[in-house]
Structures are given as structure tokens and as C-alpha cells.
């Protein structure tokens, strides 16, 4: 840029430096102050490659081990695994475009927004590495998903071609989101992504009802992939040329989302990740809810507030609705139908639904001020928070186990089991919501997945541990294919334990408590 005349400021002027030299200055200073060297960087890269490889191999292995049962007798509507894979690709496209739109895909948050964006240097040069990173990330994420699906659905298109095609499509999707960010608001990409994502369960239902049973998916020829690649590369060049046209306000918005999302990943908080990617587009102003008139005491206040949080979050409502249909979808896919797969689908889908019902509790854990103002003890408050997740998850379980009952042609015992098992999820939802954040400032453990804070596994296990215990009888019933009366009794006991455990306000671990009890006993003996 030629020198601009300014009225005030330092007299001695030189030409404004290139953006690259500003980035290099930052990088050089960061290197100067850094404690690690190239070895640390290489070891980080090594760890990343190893963990992605291990995850992919584990997923492929697990999918290969799943037993394939005969299709259920009397099922008039069904789809094939390839049909489901096509739906999975539709969901992947939606998730990719939607996430790219929410994250910019080009953004500048935090220090970059404050210190870089006001500089009169070529903004395109500042943003280029960020844009390249997002495009590459889109390609890699798509390739990983495609690799798993390609090995899970043998036959048809060669795995190499599938992976290459999906990776190129992933790159193209992020590039399109980037171009939309330049020309319009990011909302267009977000809406497009959400539309595709919402279309996925509809497509799955249509595939089942229409008995769509393709033998393979994505039979795109190599020349087609090459053509798509050429379009993606052309789009990427266009995006690069237009980076300087993105207004600072959009860069700041998407940068802030990316920073919040990164924070959520570091604190291993999936709900916070959802909030980062969803809440900024949510309406900031709401009508005063009539439901608040129902408030007539602290317990009702909590219940109404929890219900309102859930009702005002379409993302979570959708999550609950879609996951409730997963067991039915597994039953309608002969290639997947089997007791083990069904039990896995029940537990995994239920866990996702459970997380959605714990949103209000998670917010209370992060901002406990309102709870502390209520004239109730901590335990009573915690128990009141079981009500909404309990009711919602009971309805969810009625749908999920009801479809199993219909499949087994004996729905009544399964519905009874659902009523008894449903509330157990609420225990898991609360235990998961009120879990502490991992302590990144304490000792770190070096693992093939990179540095992990001591106790991270225990933090992540809070919630799923209650699910395993509380839903064990129901899972056994799904595996065994029947609901004996004794099992109903056992389920009632397991649910009671899950509710008690999940609503406990105890923060110490069992080992800590045993050690302290032993210490106290020793002191008493003295």
C-alpha cells in the first residue's frame, strides 16, 4: 500500500510491510518465547497421526465384527446398508457446510481481531493460512468418515475412489461456504447445512418406507472426481483472491465462534461445543413465556425453567426426536439387525438424547448463581433437576423400546420396561451435566492421543457410568430379546440407584472417600 498522509503520529515513516512479514514477526516472537522445539512439534504431529489412525482402525474393526442377523420376519419396509450410507453422506455434507458456515470458515478472533485486523497491511495475506487450514480440515474430516464407511460397506465402489471422492467433496463444501461468507452472510451456509442435516432423518425414513435398497453408493467415476477437484481448486483460488473482501465484523463473529468451539474441545465439553456452534445464531430476544406463570415455589420454578430451556432449543429437541428413531432404523435395516447392534444403537442414541435433556443442568453448573438464590438445599435442587430429563427420557425410551416390542410382536412388557428404565437416563444426564472440568493446569499424562490431564478419563466417564449401571437390565432385555418379570423388578432397583447416584452432590471420588474414612478411623483409634 502506498503511504497514506496522516495528521498525527510518528513522523518517520516507511512503507507498510507485507502481511507475511507481520505473520512471521508473530511466529518468530512465539518461537523465541516457546519452551518446546521442532522435536515437540514433530511429536505432536506423530501423536495426531497415530490417534487418528488408531481411531479409524478401531472403528473399522468394530464394524467388521458386528454379527449380521437374518432380517426380521414380517418386515415390509426395509433399506440396505448402502442406503443408510448414502443418508450418512447427506448428514456429513450438512454437518460440514453448517459447521464451516458457523466457523466462517474464515475468521479472526481474539488477539488476531484486535491486533491484526486494524493494520493497513494486505488483509488477504493475513487470512490466507487460516483459510487454507479450514479447507484442508474439511477434506481430512470427510476422508476419515469416508474411510470408515467405505470399509463398513464392502462391495460396489472401490474404497480408494469413495474416500477420494468424499474428501474432494469436503474440500468443495468448505470452499463454497467460504465464497458464501464473502458474498453474503454466513447464515446462508448455516441454513444450507442445517437443511441438509434435517433432510438426513427424513431421507432415512423415506429410504425405509420406500424400501430403497441400493447395492452401493457414490459410484462416481474417476473423471467425475477429477472434475469436482478442478472446480474445488478453482473455487479455492477465487476464495483466496476475495479474502480481503470479507468485512471485519464477519471475521470477528466467526473468529469468536471458533475460539469458543476450541475452548469447548479443550475442556472436553460437547454441549459447550454445541452452544458455540449454535447459540450465536439464536434469537437474542424472547417473548415472556406464559409458562412462567406456573411458577409457584422453588421446585416448580426449576422445573419450568428446565422445560423452557429445552423448549427454546430446537437443536436439542431435534436431537431427542432423531435419536428416538435410531433403534427403529436399525430394525429396518436387515444388514444391521441383530441384538448386539440394537443394544448398541439403544445405548448410543439414548446417550445423545440424554445429553440434550441435561442442557439446563449444565448451564446451572457453569453459572450456579440462580440455583444458590433458591430457598432449597443443594441436594433438593439437584433432585428437582431430575424431573424434566426424567419425563423426556421416559417418553424417548417408550418410543425406542416400543419399536423393539413391535418388532418382537409383544409390545406390552417392553413398554412397561421403558417406563421403569426411562428415568434412569435422568441420573446420567445430571451426573454428566454437573461434572467438573478437566484440570489442565495439573499434571498431564503423555498418551498416543497427546497430553491429557490426569483424571480426564474419570471426568468423561461421569454420566456414562450411571447409564451403564441404570440401563443394564434394559440392555440385557434387548440382548436377550425378552422381558421377564424379574427383570422389571431389577430395572426398578437399578433406576432408583441411578437417580440417587446422578443427583448426588458429592464431588469426591469413591477412592477419595474410602481413603478419608480409613484415615478418620485411624485417627479415632489413636
Amino acid at each position, binding site marked *: 500500500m502506498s503511504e497514506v498522509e*496522516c495528521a498525527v503520529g*510518528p513522523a*518517520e515513516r516507511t512503507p507498510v510491510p507485507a502481511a507475511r512479514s507481520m505473520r512471521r514477526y508473530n511466529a518468530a516472537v512465539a518461537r523465541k518465547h516457546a519452551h518446546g522445539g521442532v522435536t515437540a512439534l514433530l511429536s505432536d504431529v506423530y501423536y495426531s497421526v497415530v490417534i487418528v489412525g488408531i481411531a479409524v482402525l478401531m472403528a473399522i474393526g468394530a464394524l467388521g465384527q458386528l454379527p449380521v442377523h437374518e432380517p426380521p420376519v414380517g418386515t415390509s419396509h426395509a433399506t440396505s446398508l448402502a442406503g443408510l450410507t448414502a443418508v450418512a453422506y447427506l448428514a456429513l455434507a450438512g454437518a460440514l457446510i453448517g459447521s464451516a458456515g458457523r466457523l466462517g470458515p474464515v475468521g479472526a478472533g481474539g488477539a488476531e*481481531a484486535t491486533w491484526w485486523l486494524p*493494520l*493497513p497491511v494486505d488483509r488477504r495475506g493475513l487470512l490466507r493460512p487460516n483459510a487454507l487450514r479450514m479447507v484442508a480440515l474439511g477434506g481430512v474430516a470427510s476422508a476419515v468418515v469416508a474411510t470408515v464407511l467405505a470399509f463398513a460397506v464392502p462391495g460396489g465402489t472401490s474404497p480408494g475412489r469413495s474416500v477420494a471422492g468424499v474428501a474432494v467433496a469436503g474440500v468443495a463444501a468448505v470452499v463454497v461456504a467460504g465464497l458464501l461468507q464473502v458474498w453474503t452472510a454466513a447464515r446462508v451456509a448455516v441454513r444450507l447445512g442445517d437443511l441438509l442435516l434435517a433432510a438426513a432423518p427424513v431421507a432415512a425414513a423415506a429410504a425405509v418406507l420406500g424400501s430403497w435398497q441400493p447395492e452401493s453408493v457414490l459410484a462416481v467415476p474417476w473423471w467425475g472426481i477429477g472434475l469436482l477437484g478442478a472446480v474445488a481448486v478453482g473455487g479455492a483460488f477465487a476464495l483466496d483472491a476475495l479474502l*480481503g473482501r470479507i468485512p*471485519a465484523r464477519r471475521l470477528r463473529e466467526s473468529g469468536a465462534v471458533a475460539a469458543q468451539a476450541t475452548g469447548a474441545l479443550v475442556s472436553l465439553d460437547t454441549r459447550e461445543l454445541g452452544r458455540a456452534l449454535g447459540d450465536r445464531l439464536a434469537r437474542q430476544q424472547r417473548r415472556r413465556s406464559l409458562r412462567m406463570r406456573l411458577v409457584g415455589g422453588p421446585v416448580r420454578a426449576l422445573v419450568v425453567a428446565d422445560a423452557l430451556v429445552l423448549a427454546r432449543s430446537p437443536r436439542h429437541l431435534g436431537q431427542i426426536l432423531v435419536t428416538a428413531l435410531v433403534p427403529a432404523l436399525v430394525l429396518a435395516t436387515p444388514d444391521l439387525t441383530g441384538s448386539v447392534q440394537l443394544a448398541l444403537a439403544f445405548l448410543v442414541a439414548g446417550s445423545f438424547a440424554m445429553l440434550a435433556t441435561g442442557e439446563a443442568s449444565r448451564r446451572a453448573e457453569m453459572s450456579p448463581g440462580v440455583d444458590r438464590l433458591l430457598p432449597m438445599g443443594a441436594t433438593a435442587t439437584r433432585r428437582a433437576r431430575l424431573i424434566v430429563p426424567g419425563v423426556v427420557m421416559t417418553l424417548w425410551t417408550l418410543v425406542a423400546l416400543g419399536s423393539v416390542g413391535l418388532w418382537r410382536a409383544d409390545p406390552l412388557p417392553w413398554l412397561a420396561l421403558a417406563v421403569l428404565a426411562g428415568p434412569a437416563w435422568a441420573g446420567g444426564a445430571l451426573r454428566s451435566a454437573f461434572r467438573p472440568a478437566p484440570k489442565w493446569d495439573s499434571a498431564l499424562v503423555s498418551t498416543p492421543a497427546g497430553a491429557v490431564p490426569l483424571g480426564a478419563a474419570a471426568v468423561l466417564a461421569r454420566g456414562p457410568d450411571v447409564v451403564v449401571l441404570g440401563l443394564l437390565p434394559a440392555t440385557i432385555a434387548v440382548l436377550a430379546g425378552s422381558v421377564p418379570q424379574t427383570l422389571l423388578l431389577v430395572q426398578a432397583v437399578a433406576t432408583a440407584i441411578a437417580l440417587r447416584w446422578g443427583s448426588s452432590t458429592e464431588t469426591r471420588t469413591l477412592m477419595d472417600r474410602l481413603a478419608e474414612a480409613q484415615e478418620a478411623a485411624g485417627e479415632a483409634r489413636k
Partner: protein
Amino acid sequence: MSRARPPAVLRVSKLSVGWTGRPVCGQASFTLPAGRSLALVGPNGSGKSTLLRAILGLLEPLSGSVQLLGVEVDERRASFRAQVSAVLDDDAWFPALTVAEHLYLVARGHGVGDAQDEVDALLDEFGLTGHADVLPTALSSGQRRRLLLAAGLVRPRSLLVLDEPEQRLDTATRQLLAERLNAEKEAGGAVLVATHDPDLLAAVADRAVIVGDETRLVSTAEAVDALRPGVL
């Protein structure tokens, strides 16, 4: 014979700002010539910061226009960013850069020739020399505010925009700030400042805009009066 008027650095015409299509305050219209200063005053939430953000091109206005030196504001133009220095309520720092390195980054990025000398002089002026080599996160909130002010002054500019610069500053630094802003005007720069501080307002502003349902241009004395408790 009429006196020659200084050229307008900033011209704001019927500017309406807000969120989701709803204006947060009445339309603003004013002109800020070189060598003058204008203050925005009003209670919390009246729309001062929103107006500043729209003037800086960081928020799309609902209607109206903003011109800098006769050209419509577009922060994507490097020449606009070279002319306008803004000190907002940002509190984000590069984790690896020290206090001095943050200032050096700004000075170098604006093509300041003797960047290190300028940085040293401002560190001294704002009482940060002893903290030059620490990370900004190790500073107190008031010291970080001083660092932001120094960053706004370490680079060339024609218009200086400040959003409540008196926040978190001690009395001595507020006086220093007032002196600095008056020096800015004397050097030919234009100053646009949003403030709640009647002393700063009286010491610096030539005119003021009371921001509210009916945004209006007033004299400094009237604005100082308006800042008394219970008036706005």
C-alpha cells in the same frame, strides 16, 4: 468575510444503528473537523458504543452514511485503517507477545520508521516501562487499559476514536489522557470519544452528542450538565 472552516475529517449523516433491524437510539448527524473533538454521552445501553462501531465500519448501519475525509467508510480499505485509530474495550492478547512486542507489532504494521523509539517513549509516558517484557495477561486491568491507549497512539492517524477510555484508569492517568487528547487536537487530529467522565468531557470536547431516543448535538457545557446524576 467568513472564516475558513477546517476540512471535515468525519461526516455522519442520519446514521441509524441497532441490532436485528431495531434501532437502539435516534439518528445521529454531526461533522467532526480536523483539530476538533466530539464526545458521545449517554446512559449505559443508550447506543454510544454501537454508534462508534458503525462509524468504524464494524457494524452495518440500519440507514444513513458515514464519510471519512469525503469517502464513504469501508474498513476493508487499507487507507481507512491507516487513517483511523480506535481504542475500544478489547481485552485480547497474543499469548506469546510481551507488552512491548504488542506495541511494536502495531508500530511496524503501520510503517513507523523508528518503531522501537516510539514504543519506548509511550511505555515511559504510560508508566509501563517496568512491565515492557511481561505478558499483558500479567498486568492489572488498569495497566492493560493503558497499554491499549498506548497502542492507539503509537501509530499515525487522522482520527482517534475512543470508547470510554477513562474506564479503570487512575486520576493521574486520566489527566495524562486529557492532555494527550488536547495535544492530538493541536497537532491537527480529530478526536471522537464516548465517555461518562464529566472532567474528561469538559477538558477535551469541543462539542458533544447526547445519545438516546432523540440523539442531538449539544454544547460541551450542556453535555457536562447532562452527566449529573438523575439528568440522563
